[in-house]
């Protein structure tokens, strides 16, 4: 034993010291390029944005007075110029998110389950469901604005109705949610498909042997198997819905009144149209905090079930 120990120690002393010294910094060298990009394009702008939110900031005026937390305070002061509009837009964002997320979780899952079977033309249908996703928001927005025009659009012409799809509630929300689901369900469907294909076939065979029906298979094999994918899909869909801007801007223009003007739309208007960038930055950070909290809650919910 002693001889063996001595031999081992000798080998260690001879071979390892140089490796240890090199090993200590190599991983960081590999990370440096990515950290530079992350710091340069994410971290610094975020910090700079915080700085802007503490000022009355118009980038073309020589004076950008420091106002401390005034921009944040104004968002909680009912007497301020921005309070009503900001919380109205947050409400709009909330309504859209609550209305669209359930549909964007369930409908793509149904589509994925259908497409996951073997049948002729499967590739064609996969392409059909995914195709709208390839188009940009500007194309989608203008296309559906004309189709949904209450007076002259094709939808009302075909249905023989005069429904005000873009100018009254609840139709404006139905239109925005419908268009968004149609546009983006393909993306979630593809994610679900990838998840479904990762579930071992043996589990379904075992469930079948145990006499489980289709519903039992879905509940006890498919859903648990999709849980990691579901976490990603839920958070991604919630964040995307909360950041909705293009559809409302192009299809309803925030109408009726400002009912469908979402938070991002109002932030963009405040910062880029009215050039009140300090106020817009403060609104952005408040929205960020809200979304962080929601994401944390979602993580907790998924962890609890495990």
């Amino acid at each position: 034993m002693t001889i063996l120990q001595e031999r081992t120690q000798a080998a260690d002393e001879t071979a390892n010291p140089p490796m240890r010294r090199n090993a200590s910094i190599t991983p960081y060298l590999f990370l440096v390029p990515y950290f530079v990009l992350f710091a340069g394009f994410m971290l610094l702008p975020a910090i700079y944005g915080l700085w802007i939110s503490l000022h009355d900031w118009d980038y073309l005026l020589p004076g950008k007075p420091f106002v401390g937390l005034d921009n944040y305070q104004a968002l909680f002061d009912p007497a301020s110029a921005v309070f009503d509009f900001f919380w109205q837009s947050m409400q709009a964002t909330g309504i859209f998110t609550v209305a669209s997320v359930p549909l964007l979780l369930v409908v793509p899952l149904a589509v994925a389950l259908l497409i996951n079977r073997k049948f002729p033309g499967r590739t064609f249908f996969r392409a059909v469901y995914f195709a709208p996703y390839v188009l940009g928001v500007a194309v989608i927005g203008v296309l559906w604005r004309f189709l949904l025009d209450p007076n002259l659009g094709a939808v009302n012409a075909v249905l023989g109705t005069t429904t005000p799809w873009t100018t009254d509630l609840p139709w404006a929300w139905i239109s925005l949610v419908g268009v968004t689901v149609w546009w983006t369900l393909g993306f979630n469907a593809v994610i679900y498909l990838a998840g479904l294909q990762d579930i071992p076939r043996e589990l379904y065979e075992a469930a079948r042997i145990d006499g489980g029906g289709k519903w039992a298979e879905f509940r006890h094999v498919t859903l648990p198997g999709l849980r990691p994918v579901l976490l990603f899909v839920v958070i991604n869909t919630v964040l995307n819905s909360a950041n909705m801007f293009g559809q409302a801007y192009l299809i309803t223009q925030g109408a009726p009144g400002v009912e469908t003007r979402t938070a991002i739309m109002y932030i963009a208007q405040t910062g880029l149209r009215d050039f009140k960038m300090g106020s817009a930055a403060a609104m952005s950070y408040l929205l960020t905090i809200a979304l962080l909290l929601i994401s944390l809650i979602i993580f907790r919910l998924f962890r609890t079930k495990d």
Partner: protein
Amino acid sequence: MNPYLTRRGALGLGAGAGTAILLSACGDSGPNEKVTGGGPNAAPAATAYTGPNVSLAFWNGFTGGDGAFMKTLIDQFNTEHQNIKVSMNVYQWADYYQKVPAAVSSGNGPDLGIMHVDSVATNAARGVILPLDDLAASLSLTEDDFSPPVWQAGVYNQKRYGIPLDVHPLGLFYNKTVMEKAGLDPEKPPATADEYLTALDKLKSAGVQGSWATPFQFTGSMWFHSLLWQFGGDLFDAGAQKATFAQDPGVQALTWYTDLVRKGYSPRNVAQDADLVALRNGKNALNWNGIWTINTLSEDKNLQWGAAPVPQIGTQKAVWAGSHQFVQFKQRSQDDNKLTAGKVFINWISQKSLEWAKGGQVPARKDVRESAEFKALPAQAALAQQIDYVHYPPSVPGIGDALNTVVTAVNESVLLRKEPAKALSDAAAKADQILEQNRKKYGG
């Protein structure tokens, strides 16, 4: 790739602005310095350019039929001036007003541009544009050359920042075929409140909702502005300290406008531009729209249409109008050759405003408006009759921010979601807050 514009994407909208901020922060305070020069006693600028070859970038928002006319004029100018080359870039106006300040701030701004009259004061206050009093002097332009409202609109803090190119007022556009079918004289559009409502009743009897009331800014808000002034009101008090559009004349105006919907003269829930499409399709008869509509209607060879001054519904004549104004942009380092060449260009175009009028505008200059050639353009000449009672918003920086509340009020009222008086008082309260914010910001 995310399907929606994410926050990152939305912030990316400000990427140009962000870059501008960084460059501004890192560089000297060049573009943010207080603008100097100008004023009523400025020495006249040159009317000819004899220096070395220069290229001038000219940005504007002429994305409609008018863009082609401006392109033709620029080609002609370039041919006649071998040492000046003007190149035109066209953006949607909404994008234009975001891009230009960012470009100027980063030192990559264009040399020349067009601004709507209600944006001149804001951009002057923010140091984006330069005073042009010397150009006005060299053009020998005085108030007598323009109708007073047009001339006074380009002045901010006693300095002139815009040279008027045109006036684009609202007008009454009518479908002669629809009118004739309803038993109305297609050559005699209504000119008074009584005539207007009588015409609408006849159209209604013939099954036509004859006056579609759009709830959107184009042109519902402009329609409201016109009515407000006609009923003796105004948007703001002197100096734009307080909003006044929620007072009685405003309530009368918005009530009259909203009643078009309530009395069945207009469909409910008219979408943006649906009123004009309906006019072309024979479902609408009378449309208060901007003069830019001339280009659109002219494209339709089968359409029998006419243009007339907007009817006088209130106690006095008044009509909303905008005006395209030539501006020169501040540069990080001033190039006197480009400045001089730019003024020569503006001078030249100003004297060619009849050609521009053919693109569907009313020339700003009185002598052009009174020429036989202009009077031979029937639609433009009809709308030009309104020139002496056009109204603009006050030349106050940030005024557009406050006017956005009027857009919302009109929208909510015409969509029958709020009573006119309530919609206006809510908007006025908000506008007052915005005006106060802007006084602090711009030091007005």
